[in-house]
C-alpha cells in the first residue's frame, strides 16, 4: 500500500523540482493526447516548445515571447504578493483593462501634443492608478464590510469589460476612424508609443518594468518587513496578529500593489503591441497570470520562468494549431494539464510517499 506521510518541514529540493517535473508530465500526457488526435507526439511537442525559438519562422515568433511574457510576469508578480498573504485577487483582468483605459484616455487627452517626456510617464501613472483603484474596490469592501474579495474582484472584471466596449465605441473612438469602433492607434502616436527597444527582441518598456517588478518583489519578500508580514499572514494569520500585523492594511496594500501592476501591464500593452482600445484588446492575461503565479511557486524568480514558459506554450500552441491543424481546444487542454500536474505533484513538497507492506499479525 502507498501512503502519504507529512514531512517534518517542506522539502526545499522538491519545491524546485516539482515545476520541471510537472512540465515533463505535461509533455508526456500532452504527447499522448496529440497521438490520440493522430499527430506524431514528438513533432507536436517540438512544434510547441522548440520551433517558436529555433524553428524556421523563429525570427517572427521569438519577439512574441517577451511581448506575451511581460504582462503575464508583471501581473503574476503582483498577484503572488496577495496570494502569499492569503488575499485572493482574481480580478487582475479587470484591473488590467482599467489600467489600459486610463492610460489610453490620458494619452488621447493630450493628442496630438508632442511631449513624450510628459505624456508617457503620465500614462504609466494613470495606468497604475486605474488598476489600483479597481483593485481597491474589493479591498476596501472586504476591510469595511467583510465581503469576499474573490467574488467582488472577479465580478468587477465584467464591469471593466463593459466599460471597455463603451469606451471603444464611445468616448475613446477614433474621430478619424470613419465610424469603426476602436481608438486612435497609440503606438503610432510618438508621445505615447511603447516601441520595441532592441530590434528583433520584442523587448519594450513593459519587459523592463516586469524585470524591475520581479526584483523589487524578491527584495520585498525576502528583506522587507512588509514581505515578512505577507508571508506570516499567509501561513499563520493568528501569529501575524500576535506579531502586530494589521490584516486590513495588508489587504489594502496587497490588492493595491497587484492592481497597480496589472494596470501598468495594461498600459504597456495598449501603448505598444495592442496599440488601440478596441472592444476586445484584452486576451485574458489577467486570468492566465493566476496560473503563472502558481506555476512560479508564488516566487518572483519562479514567476519569471513560468511567465516565459506560459508565453512559449501560447506561441507554440498557436503555431501547432496552424502547422499541424490541431484544434484550439487541444492546446487549451494542454495548458490546463500544466496547472493540473503542477498542483498534483505539489503534494510531494509537503508529503513523502511511503510504502507500507501488509503486515500479517
Amino acid at each position, binding site marked *: 500500500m502507498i501512503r502519504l506521510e507529512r514531512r*517534518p*518541514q*517542506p522539502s526545499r529540493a522538491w519545491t524546485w523540482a516539482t515545476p520541471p517535473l510537472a512540465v515533463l508530465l505535461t509533455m508526456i500526457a500532452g504527447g499522448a493526447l496529440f497521438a490520440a488526435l493522430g499527430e506524431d507526439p514528438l513533432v507536436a511537442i517540438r512544434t510547441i516548445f522548440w520551433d517558436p525559438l529555433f524553428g524556421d519562422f523563429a525570427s517572427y515568433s521569438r519577439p512574441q515571447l517577451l511581448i506575451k511574457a511581460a504582462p503575464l510576469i508583471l501581473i503574476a508578480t503582483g498577484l503572488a504578493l496577495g496570494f502569499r498573504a492569503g488575499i485572493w485577487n482574481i480580478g487582475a483582468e479587470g484591473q488590467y483593462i482599467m489600467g489600459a483605459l486610463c492610460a489610453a484616455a490620458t494619452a488621447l487627452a493630450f493628442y496630438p501634443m508632442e511631449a513624450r517626456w510628459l505624456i508617457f510617464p503620465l500614462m504609466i501613472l494613470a495606468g497604475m492608478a486605474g488598476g489600483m483603484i479597481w483593485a481597491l474596490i474589493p479591498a476596501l469592501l472586504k476591510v469595511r464590510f467583510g465581503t469576499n474579495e474573490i467574488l467582488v474582484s472577479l465580478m468587477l472584471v465584467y464591469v471593466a469589460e463593459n466599460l471597455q466596449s463603451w469606451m471603444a465605441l464611445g468616448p475613446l473612438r477614433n474621430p478619424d476612424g470613419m465610424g469603426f469602433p476602436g481608438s486612435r492607434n497609440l503606438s503610432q502616436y510618438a508621445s505615447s508609443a511603447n516601441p520595441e527597444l532592441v530590434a528583433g527582441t520584442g523587448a519594450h518598456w513593459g519587459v523592463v518594468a516586469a524585470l524591475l517588478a520581479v526584483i523589487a518583489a524578491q527584495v520585498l519578500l525576502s*528583506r*522587507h*518587513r*512588509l514581505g*515578512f508580514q505577507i*508571508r*506570516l499572514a499567509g*501561513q*499563520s494569520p*493568528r*501569529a*501575524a*496578529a*500576535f*506579531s*502586530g500585523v*494589521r490584516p486590513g492594511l495588508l489587504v489594502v496594500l496587497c490588492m493595491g500593489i497587484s492592481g497597480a501592476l496589472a494596470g501598468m501591464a495594461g498600459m504597456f500593452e495598449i501603448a505598444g503591441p495592442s496599440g488601440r482600445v478596441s472592444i476586445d484588446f484584452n486576451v485574458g492575461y489577467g486570468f492566465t497570470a493566476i496560473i503563472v503565479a502558481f506555476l512560479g511557486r508564488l516566487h518572483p524568480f519562479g514567476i519569471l520562468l513560468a511567465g516565459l514558459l506560459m508565453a512559449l506554450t501560447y506561441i507554440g500552441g498557436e503555431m501547432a494549431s496552424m502547422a499541424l491543424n490541431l484544434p484550439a481546444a487541444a492546446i487549451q487542454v494542454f495548458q490546463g494539464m500544466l496547472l493540473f500536474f503542477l498542483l498534483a505533484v505539489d503534494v510531494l513538497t509537503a508529503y513523502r510517499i511511503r510504502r*507500507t507492506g*501488509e*503486515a500479517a*499479525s
Partner: protein
Amino acid sequence: MTGPLLRLTGLTKAYPGVIANSGVSLDIAPGEIHALLGENGAGKSTLVKTIYGLVKPDEGTMEWRGAPYAPAEPSEARRTGVAMVFQHFSLFDALDVAENVALGMEDPPPMRALATRIREVSQAYGLPLDPARIVGDLSAGERQRVEIVRCLLQDPRLLIMDEPTSVLTPQEVAILFETLRKLKSEGTSILYISHKLEEIRTLCDTATILRGGRVVGSCIPGETTARAMAETMVGSALQAPERASRPEGPVALEVSDLTAASPRPFGTALREVALTIRAGEILGIAGVAGNGQDELLLALSGEMTTAPGTILMGGTDCSRAGPAARREAGLLCAPEERMGHAAAPDMSLTENAFLTGETRQRLSRRGFADWAGARAFAARVIEAFDVRTPGPGTAARALSGGNLQKFLIGREILQAPKVLVVNQPTWGVDAAAAAAIRQALLDLAAGGAAVIVVSQDLDELMEVSDRMAALTGGRLSAPVPAQGLTVERIGLMLGGAHDMEAAHAPAREGAA
C-alpha cells in the same frame, strides 16, 4: 487470568539521527495502572505509538495475553482492545459531541443510539457530557471527556493516556482519578503518561522510567518520592526553583474595569477584570482554559483593543495600542498555543525570533529586516534556554513541544520586558524544561520585571506566584497572597469543579 496483559520485549525503533527506543521491555498486568515516565524526547511517545499500531518497531516483539501482537495500524490495535487518549485532541470544533465520537468509530451505530450510549457511559464514569453540544463550545477539560468517552465506548482492555491532567482543575483531576480507579477495578489496564510525579504517586501501581530511549528504572511510585523519580528521569540531581525575596517596586501594569467581548465565535467575554501588578512581582492567574484566559491574553498583547483607560502601562494608557506599540512600551506576551499563534510553524526559528523581536531588538532598519541580527538573536535564545535544535534555520514545526516552548518563552524574556504575560508556560513540557522555565520567570521578576503567569497547573502557580487570582467565566477574583494558600482553597476560588461529579453508583450498563 495469569500473566501480563501486554508484554513488550526488547523494542527498538530508530529514526534517522535518533534512537527513539532501545531494547525497551516492560509488562503491563491486567487491572494495573502503569505509569510511563520520562522527559520529552525520552521515547514515551514512540513507545505508546508502537503499542497503538502507529509505529512499527525495528526490533523486538509484543505479546498480548501471551499471543504475538503486532498491530499494522491503529484500527487493529483498537480491535484487540487498546484505546488511546492523545495529549492533543483530535476533535472537530464545528461538529457536536456525538458526531465527533462517531467519526472515530469503525462502524458507528445510528446517531440516536450512539447519543444514548454516550450519555450512559459518561454518567457511569462521572464524566457528564451532552452528546448534542458543539465541541467548539466545550472547555479543554470537557473536550478531554469526549476523547475518554470515545475510548470507553470501545470497551478497551488497555487504555493509554498521554498527559491527561494538564488541562484539569484539582477537582477535575480527582474525578478523573476516580474514573480511572473504577476502570481498574473492572479489570482494565491503564498506561499513564504524565510529568506530574505527585499524581503518579497517588494513582499508579507501577512506574517505568525512560531516559534516552532506554528503560532506566522502574519503581512502585507509592513507595518512593517524587524527587527520586524525577532524578532518575533526568539522570542528575534536580534543582528546585529558588525565590529571592523581592522589594516592592512601582506599579508596572494596571488593568481596570476591562470588559470585552471575545473576538472568537466560541470564546468567553471578559467582565470587569481589574488587576494591578508591581515591578518585581509575579501574579498567578489560575483557572481552566476557556474561562477567558485567551481573551485576557489578547487584550494584554494588543491583538484585541479595549476601551480607553482600561490598560495602563507604567501610568500610560495603552488600551488602544497595537502589539508592536505595546512591545515598544515593554509589555510582552507569550500565548498558550505555540503552533500558529506564538510561532509560525513553517517558518525558521530566525524568522520566529523576528516575529516578536523586531521592535525591541531593533531587528529592522527603515523597514528592511536585519536577518543576520535576527539569526544572532535566535541563536542567543537557543543558547540561553538550552533549546535542542540543529540551529536557527530549523522550522519551528520540527521542534518538540518542550523545546519550542523554551524558545518562545526565552524569546520574550531575552527582550527584557517590563511586564511579561505568559499563558500556560509549561503545558506539555517535561519536568526539567518546566523547572528551567519557572526559574527563568523567577529570575526575570527578581531582575525587576512584573510577570503574570496564567496557568491551569496550581502547583506551578504556588511555586512561582507572590499573589494569586482565579479567572472563571471571564471574571477575575481579587488577588490574594500566595503564601499559605492550599490547593483546596484555590480550587474553591475557581468555583468548584465545573459541573463534574464523582463517578456515581449505577454500574456501566452494557459493559462486558
